[in-house]
């Protein structure tokens, strides 16, 4: 499909054009150095050149908290609240976060397809944007170059003076109707290089992980881990949740809510009676890394980590998933060499 030139000076007008059609969610500055997706009120507040947002756009499809059922405690009945479809454009999404949404699509369609997720997801259009990798990004190592357009309806490739705007789907083209832009004839600038790498071809990861089950790295890293669960909360492909009932103060109504949960928390595997099935922090660290690189990956043939670097950037204990995986690679190579 076609490619257009969107000069910097026209970006705000372009955002306003999107706003005239749908709700637009885009990155905004939050505090000094943090960024977050939020509904756009003023186009000039949108930041398209940012390192990473605190949470990915996952929060719009799988909210951090959501009501699954509402109760009438007097009648002892329950109902499912209607979920509103999102008629929205997600603007300025990095390639790894788009891939993360595609992975969540897999998780929420495979097996038992989930209505709440799919209702929110189905109407969403995505406008991707290129980025300059910082010291935490490593999506290039998991098969996602910074300019990868998979899953996007439009894509903004940063170029001299603005963006090369690529239309990728009919939905994306539709968004451009009524906003005339000149064609972009020049080639695309090469995507910026990554500074973090997992040093192993994807095909070999399966063996590396299988070999790494008993690695000392789990104990060593777990020693630093405080089991705070932040790495789970910020991860765009984590989707585990817990469910709890709440009763309102009149004790006549209540709701069943789900909220994000994390496998690094000790309570995650606790059953009634107190048994905890992954008792040691090392067991839980291994589970997280295996969830990202082995279990689902063995089935689908691709890593379930998208290399956003959030878990490493936000871990107060300084635990790096890249170091863990590279350590497993080294151990494997040392034995197989």
């Amino acid at each position, binding site marked *: 499909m076609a490619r257009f030139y969107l000069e910097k000076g026209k970006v705000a007008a372009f955002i306003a054009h999107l706003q005239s059609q749908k709700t637009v969610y885009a990155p905004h500055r939050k505090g000094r150095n943090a960024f977050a997706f939020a509904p756009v009120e003023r186009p000039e507040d949108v930041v398209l050149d940012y390192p990473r947002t605190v949470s990915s756009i996952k929060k719009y499809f799988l909210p951090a908290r959501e009501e699954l*059922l509402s109760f009438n405690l007097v009648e002892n009945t*329950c109902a499912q609240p209607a979920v509103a479809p999102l008629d929205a454009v997600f603007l300025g999404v990095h390639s790894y976060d788009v891939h993360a949404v595609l992975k969540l699509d897999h998780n*929420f369609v495979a097996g038992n397809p989930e209505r709440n997720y799919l209702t929110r997801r189905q109407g969403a259009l995505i406008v991707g944007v290129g980025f300059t990798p910082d010291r935490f990004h490593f999506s290039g190592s998991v098969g996602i170059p910074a300019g990868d357009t998979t899953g996007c309806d439009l894509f903004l490739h940063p170029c001299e003076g603005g963006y090369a705007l690529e239309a990728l789907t009919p939905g994306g083209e539709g968004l451009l109707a009524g906003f005339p832009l000149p064609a972009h004839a020049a080639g695309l600038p090469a995507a910026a290089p990554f500074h973090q790498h997992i040093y192993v071809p994807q095909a070999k990861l399966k063996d590396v992980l299988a070999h790494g089950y008993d690695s000392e790295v789990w104990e060593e890293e777990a020693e630093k881990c405080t089991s705070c669960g932040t790495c789970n909360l910020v991860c765009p492909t984590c989707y585990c949740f817990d469910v*709890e009932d709440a009763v309102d103060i009149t*004790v006549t109504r209540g709701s069943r809510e789900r909220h994000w949960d994390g496998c690094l928390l000790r309570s995650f595997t606790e059953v009634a009676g107190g048994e905890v*099935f992954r008792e040691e922090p090392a067991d839980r660290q291994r589970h997280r890394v295996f969830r990202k690189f082995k279990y689902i990956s063995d089935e689908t043939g691709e890593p379930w980590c998208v290399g956003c670097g959030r878990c490493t950037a936000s871990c107060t204990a300084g635990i790096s998933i890249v170091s863990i995986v590279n350590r497993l690679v080294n151990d494997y190579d040392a034995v197989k060499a």
Partner: protein
Amino acid sequence: MTKRELITPAATKDLYLPVMAEITDVRQMTPLEKLFEIRLPGGADLGHRPGQFVEVSLFGVGEAPISISSSPTKKGAFDLGIRKVGMLTEMIHRMQPGERVGIRGPFGSGFDMAKFKGKDVLVVAGGIGLVPLRSLINYVLDNRADFGRLVICYGSKSDTELLFEDERRLWERDPRVEFHLTVDHGSPAWQGRTGVITTLIPGLDLDLPNTVACVCGPPIMYRFVLLALKSKRLPEENIYMSLERRMKCGVGKCGHCQINGSYVCQDGPVYHYPDIKALREAL
């Protein structure tokens, strides 16, 4: 990652919506365990297999996975054996016939009884492991001609915690059942056998190639029972076990019940031993 076709929301099921079902009978089994009989609206069939579970909910309190304790051959209602271990089960214990609970399910794999046809069935139940296995035992008894011998090994911590008193007495007397019972610590009044459950296994006279073992009990039990069955030379592919984990959603989403990469609520709780022996977190 290639983009996949999304299913339209209209084509999805009500994954999290319980059906309201009536408690029709409550029996105290031990100070901690009660047996509840539950009837779905209109006496509808639950349509379960032995070894499956349901999610039971009380609105405003929560939801918990509970093994189904009756055989699918029982019609019009099903049984749940519930131990009082937390807030939710404590509240359920206070409920009376006529009151209603929410039910989702049945969930999980269960025992594939068609595969066991013509085989001798060895049941190894530790403690409340008998609750799900009672479903299988009664299934075999109700389809007696389809199976070979029925050998039950039941171990309990003490004689005061023994479950299903009435049925146990029937099994003890039933010539179609070989029933073995032991308790870890007997009360002064206890006249039966004392010793852990594994002590029952060496003495069994089994037609090994034709025997399937169905095992369920507390987490620590599995390793020892496996050792006992292996030293008996029961082939590994004849062993099935039901494992407990923290199952929350029941539909393979919430992540709590995972054993390595396997969702217990989907692939289990009943596993064929060869399928899980490589899963390090399983046993």
